[in-house]
């Protein structure tokens, strides 16, 4: 048991991308899926309680060791890497794609109110967004969606892990209700006049 835990830790550490529990199972066909998940959970909480520089986190459908986000500024001092800097335009375009995917360019533009060709290309180049397919309507517009890398960069377990995904849906409903209210008010005004 302790041995398997050490091995799983080593596997996650050695993997270049977040390691999915199924991949771990491929190494241990005899160990139950549930047991593997339990061991991973143990490791996650051990690292969490330790409050060290490294944490085991669930990202993009797998597990990966990452530095503690609170220490980011120190590590950046050492690495002097270029972070994934996105312009506000690119960030907003990305947000729309993330929350509304699959989505075509014209739909993004109707939300942003401006052309999004530039930011879109930027996001494609950064591999945060990908072409999912083509919509079967005249002109066969390209459909966009987010990538696994998007999840990795933004520290997300999966798309449902996006903040306010539920809230946003509720907001949409509220908006619709409001619109109805507005209509009704208008009618009342009309009647009152």
């Amino acid at each position, binding site marked *: 048991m302790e041995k398997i835990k050490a091995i799983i830790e080593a596997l996650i550490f050695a993997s270049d991308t977040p390691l999915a529990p199924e991949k771990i199972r491929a190494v241990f066909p005899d160990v139950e899926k549930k047991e593997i998940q339990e061991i991973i959970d143990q490791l996650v909480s051990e690292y969490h309680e330790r409050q060290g520089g490294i944490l085991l986190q669930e990202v993009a459908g797998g597990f990966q060791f990452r530095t503690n986000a609170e220490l980011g500024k120190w590590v950046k001092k050492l690495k002097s890497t270029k972070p994934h800097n996105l312009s506000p335009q690119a960030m907003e375009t990305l947000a729309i794609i993330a929350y509304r995917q699959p989505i075509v360019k014209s739909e993004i533009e109707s939300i*942003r109110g401006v052309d999004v060709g530039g930011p879109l290309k930027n996001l494609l180049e950064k591999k945060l967004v990908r072409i999912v397919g083509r919509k079967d309507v005249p002109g066969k517009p390209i459909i966009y969606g987010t990538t696994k890398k998007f999840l990795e*960069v*933004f520290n997300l377990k999966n798309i449902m892990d996006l903040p306010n995904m539920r809230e946003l849906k509720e907001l949409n409903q509220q908006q619709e209700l409001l619109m109805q209210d507005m209509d009704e008010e208008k009618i009342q005004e009309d009647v009152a006049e």
Partner: protein
Amino acid sequence: MLSRYDDFDPDQSMDNEQNLSYAIKLDIFEGPLDLLLYLIKKNEIDIYNIPVALITEQYLQYLKMIKALNLDLAGEYLVMASTLIHIKSRMLLPPPDETEEGEEEDPRAELVRQLLEHKTFKEIASELGNRPLLERDVFVRAASLPEEMEQPMPESEELIEVSVFDLIEAFHRVVSQLDKKELLEIDLEKLSLTDIINDIMDQLAAMKSLTFEDLLKEKKDRRRIIYIFLALLELVKLRMIKAYQTSVFGVIRIFPAVE
């Protein structure tokens, strides 16, 4: 000194100017919806009850100012201006006939919907940017493993992760380097022939020799007969098989050209 400007292209300078103004515009507002949100905030207006006349006036003033500064105005701003004017005029119309059935939607409703959506996504975008970002706030192991760890176990079968799009892309790369006239002509017929050619060569490898009838087996539809015949012709042409006939109208027997 002047000579440096001899080949100065006035058209190009205008382009530069336009691009520059584009830049300035982008710095101020990201499009007409942004400008409207700014005006709403500035005037402390309830987004659900926009005084269209006031907002339209201020919006148009802004456009005038941008023009006065000789900045290039993106078409979207003008579209929004006409939308605002249209809404304003609809708001001024007398209420619809009371006998008329159906609800008349508030003329502002669509715009409000758009503004709210835009506002929501602006907020979400900033929230997204505040997440712990890879390579900004969090980092993964960057060192490579010792070489002996990187070597996979030799006996295992290698998995390959590719899609047909990768293949097409590769084919594109190759084809795009060729002359146009040399463009490979591939059509469905050629490809389905390929299947049959492969099939014949497989059978030949196992059986050493085959007759035309062997190849047809029980599947004797016209299409298949033609295809098999075409495949045999192609194979003979490619010098991959040899075909022998014992007598006129006798059995055609085929052999691999090279054992």
